[in-house]
């Protein structure tokens, strides 16, 4: 029986990093995710697993430390919140361009600008559509519980190394701050130098006589070479869309109405579905767990038999645009959201649902 421990989502990220053989964490304090680095510093993993933990001078620096560590084939990560992630976008783009694996945790807060320190999902477009300049994609996974925070660290690195691509765990202040029981899985050791050479033959591990020297770069001055690289990246993204889509469904078997929501919003929508079901309204929920790749096909399939759908988000309808693209006009798609750090209640969602569907 695996051990269960009560902890915050942010703490789960830190504990999971240590227990899953992460080599390095580089971060900068920002609310509402500072517990990640605080927990790591308290746990002193450098004395146990040898994991490096370093407080950088800025988010710009921490993401570039991640770039350096990832270049060495190490499992390295950072965490931040919205304004800090904006600063990291340069580094994220460079890592996409250099095809470096890493995990970035974004515990979103209200924006724009300094905004609020309360939860938000306002950075969906920033992270899912890009994350820095250039024609690239992050792999984006959206946790909805402290357990997800724990599990997604290891899953994130698996995806990051499989595709040599940055992975963003797109959380929000609710998931980061909320305390829940988290089941601990057995410890995984850090990769040995031998394993790194095998798993990441491209890494800068020091040039031995038997191979050519490795270069980690995102630079190309030749348009044709750059275009060829962009094509290669997009072939990789197509493969990711083919293989890695993950979502969960709640009460969709006989549903006539479908909510779409990710992260903390999906949990509130589950409660809204329960209320509607108790009133005899056959509502269901689809929660995208991967935001890129987005579950287009599954939403399209479900939309064919829905009277309507509604995207529920802590923003002004950013994911709703992707939902509408997936639905392809098969049914009306509504939206309800709160912003600025405010959160809807299940009752509020139910009321908005009824308003949209003209149900008294």
């Amino acid at each position, binding site marked *: 029986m695996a051990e269960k421990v009560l902890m915050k989502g942010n703490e789960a990220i830190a504990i999971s990093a240590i227990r899953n053989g992460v080599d390095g964490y580089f971060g900068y304090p920002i609310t509402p995710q500072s517990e990640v680095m605080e927990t790591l510093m308290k746990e002193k993993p450098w004395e146990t697993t040898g994991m490096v933990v370093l407080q950088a001078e800025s988010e710009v620096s921490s993401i570039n430390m991640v*770039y350096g560590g990832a270049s*060495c084939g190490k499992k390295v990560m950072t965490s931040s919140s919205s304004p800090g992630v904006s600063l990291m976008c340069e580094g994220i783009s460079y890592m996409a361009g250099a095809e470096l694996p890493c995990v970035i945790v974004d515990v979103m807060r209200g924006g724009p600008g300094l905004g609020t320190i309360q939860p938000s999902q306002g950075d969906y477009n920033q992270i899912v559509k890009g994350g820095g300049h250039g024609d690239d994609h992050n792999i984006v996974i959206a946790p909805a519980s402290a357990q997800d925070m724990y599990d997604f660290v290891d899953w994130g690195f698996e995806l990051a190394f499989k595709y040599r691509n940055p992975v963003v765990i797109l959380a929000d202040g609710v998931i980061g701050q909320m305390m829940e029981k988290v089941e601990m899985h057995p410890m995984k050791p850090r990769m040995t130098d031998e394993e790194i050479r095998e798993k990441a033959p491209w890494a800068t*591990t020091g040039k031995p006589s038997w191979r050519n*020297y490795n270069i980690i770069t995102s630079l190309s001055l030749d348009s044709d070479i750059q275009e060829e690289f962009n094509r290669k990246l997009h072939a990789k993204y197509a493969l990711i869309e083919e293989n890695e889509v993950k979502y969960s469904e709640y009460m969709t078997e006989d549903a006539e109405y479908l909510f779409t929501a990710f992260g903390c919003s999906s949990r509130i929508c589950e409660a809204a579905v329960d209320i509607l079901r108790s009133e005899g309204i056959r509502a269901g929920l689809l929660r995208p767990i991967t935001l890129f790749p987005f579950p287009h096909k599954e939403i399209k399939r479900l939309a064919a038999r829905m009277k309507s759908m509604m995207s529920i988000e802590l923003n002004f309808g950013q994911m709703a645009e992707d939902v509408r693209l997936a639905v392809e006009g098969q049914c009306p798609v509504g939206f309800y959201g709160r912003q600025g750090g405010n959160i809807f209640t299940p009752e509020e969602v139910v009321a908005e649902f009824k308003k949209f569907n003209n149900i008294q």
Partner: protein
Amino acid sequence: MNIEDIKKPENIVYRKPALLTDNIMHYCPGCSHGTVHKLIAEVIDEMGIQDKTIGISPVGCSVFAYNYIDIDWQEAAHGRAPALATATKRLCPDKYVFTYQGDGDLASIGTAEIIHACSRGENIVVIFINNGIYGMTGGQMAPTTLLGMKTSTTPYGRDAKLNGFPIKITEMLAELDGTAYITRQSVHTAPAARKAKNAIRKAFEYSSKGIGLSFVEIVATCNSGWKLSPVEANRWMEEHMFEKYPPGDIKDILK
């Protein structure tokens, strides 16, 4: 004694170092970068640390440094090389890690990264090429551009009121407790280049002692940007740059 008697393999006293690749350097004729690359390649070769060295190249003319020295390289975003080096050295403490940065990269956009890498005492080597100008983008003002110096963004000469003062970043970094060895060198003459090589070697050796960051500034020329011939540029550097940026050791905690 005729030429054929001398031209024998056993009589070779100097040749292109083995660790320089055969790629033709993209630098302008007479550019200091090539000379500094060569000295670094010689030091790595002589120390026998090719398989233990990781170089980090910047944004600027030397962005392509990775094409010229036969070691593993990371190419950093503009100014961020010390952050990459920090993680690389901490995660791979048995490696020799150096950054190669120009004045725009290190003393302008990357000031936070270099200051904090120095402040933390990262056990890395920083090679800082100071030619007082942005070479790659076409000769704009750099943080180290001298007062009165003409560049494409100071076409009437750098004016302190309009453009601020040149920054002596090397002296600033020497003030930080995390730095072990700070020196300023040049490579325009053979004696200067020999001294610079010794300084680079010392910096690499210090970086494995766990005593802090080693920093080698090379006052350099950009003859294209300065609009002088390579030889005239070297003379101009001696006459003008050295006044503001005098060569010599600034700090050595083991002395």
